[in-house]
């Protein structure tokens, strides 16, 4: 029995170590010189300030962070608002053909992004002369296609099933409008669901790579994954600077995740149970 236990813990420790190691490695490397990193130095050094200085001097990482933040923030707010209204509507209101529409919606989950990327790109290309503000090479063009996702609507619909219908009745009797019920009763009582959805959307959007790569062209519009990818492709890379950039790019999503972890788990449970 004891031997078995030992192997169980050994196995879990090894798997955990493998999972954590790349994080340790990037944080350690952030404080070392490029040469030492190639030598495989595993101890923290005192090169952090230097790496930070070099990073901010050679690359416009501040702009990239700002662009990513705008994209992720706006996408999250709009996507959640649209998806929760839709999910709520699908679950609460009875109308004919509702399930057919919902099933068609779910089909879009199967559409790979790569297969709609070219028509989307051409679509934005066509509207660029008429509406340059939302055309190619704008952050708006990055945001627009990710506002509506069938996954989020599905997620909200599943979670709405747990929402008590009596509360809606009570709201109606108290004379609240349908939107009033939604904003005053539904949103406050579904905090966990909103938190989980917000984490997922913010992370996906912050880390989105393929579509920004296609639609953004000028350097000052680039988001953080594009910048990291560029750094990684450099011919003579300064590893210290690259790892510093990667840590900075990972921090926001990691922080958000850890701060909201409890809500996240609670919110996910709701969607699995349904």
């Amino acid at each position, binding site marked *: 029995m004891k031997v078995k236990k030992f192997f169980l813990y050994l196995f879990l420790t090894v798997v955990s170590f493998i999972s954590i190691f790349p994080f340790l490695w990037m944080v350690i490397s952030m404080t070392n010189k490029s040469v030492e990193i190639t030598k495989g130095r595993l101890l923290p050094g005192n090169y952090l300030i230097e790496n930070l200085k070099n990073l901010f001097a050679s690359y416009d990482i501040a702009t990239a962070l700002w662009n990513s933040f705008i994209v992720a923030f706006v996408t999250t707010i709009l996507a959640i608002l649209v998806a929760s209204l839709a999910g709520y509507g699908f679950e609460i209101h009875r109308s004919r053909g509702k399930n057919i529409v919902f099933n068609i919606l779910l089909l879009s989950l*199967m559409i790979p992004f*790569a*297969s709609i990327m070219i*028509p989307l790109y051409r679509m934005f290309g066509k509207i660029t002369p008429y509406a340059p503000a939302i055309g190619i090479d704008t952050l708006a063009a990055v945001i627009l296609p990710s506002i509506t996702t069938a996954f989020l609507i599905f997620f909200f619909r599943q979670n709405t099933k747990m929402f008590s219908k009596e509360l809606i009745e009570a709201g109606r009797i108290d004379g609240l409008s349908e939107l009033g019920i939604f904003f005053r009763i539904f949103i406050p009582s579904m905090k966990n669901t909103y938190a989980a959805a917000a984490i997922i959307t913010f992370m996906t959007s912050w*880390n989105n790579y393929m579509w920004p790569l296609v639609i953004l062209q000028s350097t000052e519009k680039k988001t953080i994954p594009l910048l990291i990818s560029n750094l990684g492709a450099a011919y003579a890379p300064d590893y210290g600077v690259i790892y510093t950039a990667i840590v900075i790019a990972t921090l926001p999503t990691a922080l958000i995740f850890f701060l909201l972890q409890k809500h996240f788990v609670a919110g996910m449970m709701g969607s699995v149970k349904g």
Partner: protein
Amino acid sequence: MICIFYFYPMIQALILSFQSGMGNNLQYVGFDNYFRLFKDPTFISALKNTFIYLIFQVPIMLFLALVLATLLNSPNLKFRGFFRTAIFLPAVTSLVAYSVIFKYLFATDGLINQFLMMIHLVHEPINWITHPFWAKVTIIIAITWRWTGYNMVFYLASLQNIDKSIYEAAKIDGASPIQQFFLVTIPMLKPIILFTTITSTIGTLQLFDEVMNITYGGPGNATITISQYIYNLSFEYTPDFGYAATVSYVILILIVILSIIQFKVSGD
């Protein structure tokens, strides 16, 4: 909105797939693009690579996730919270960021090789990124690292919904932990296993960020995926949107076929 950004482009892509030409000068060519697929070596390697990832990576990852979830679900395990968080951690990283880290870890003079040589497992460094076979292995290791914890969370969540008395009954009937795993856990989790299989299949068929940033599809298209080929056809080579759209329909058709098979196999 879904119509504008998903279904309308799908129809556009279908129309495009019957056209050919450079950039925006497109003409109808009928099924020419579809015939071209069969004679296109890059497309065939992209298709082959994607299937290799699918056949090896998805089962390994899901099985590992299931085993880990079962182990971490046992209530008398110490440091449960720590193990769970640690194993889920990779799912928080951006695909591009972790790809770049893996590219350096697996470089010929990278840390993995230094370690393997230190423990005398290999005598000379493995060319992880530049050897056709090892490059595929690297990609598979990378995706497994990133997504195992993510899938584990789904299993953990549904394991908590299984009634404990079923396990007690199995124990009384004399089932060993391993028998319990195969005879109780797996059948009980069937719906969620189906769900993770389908999402992982769809994810693998769309694989892009990792190959783009770790191997750039190389060496000599040994790791290229369908998504990256579509990207290359449209934005790297002389743009041929029509042919790229044809290739993109192949992914869609594959996803539909594989999802149907998975539904049928699971018997729901």
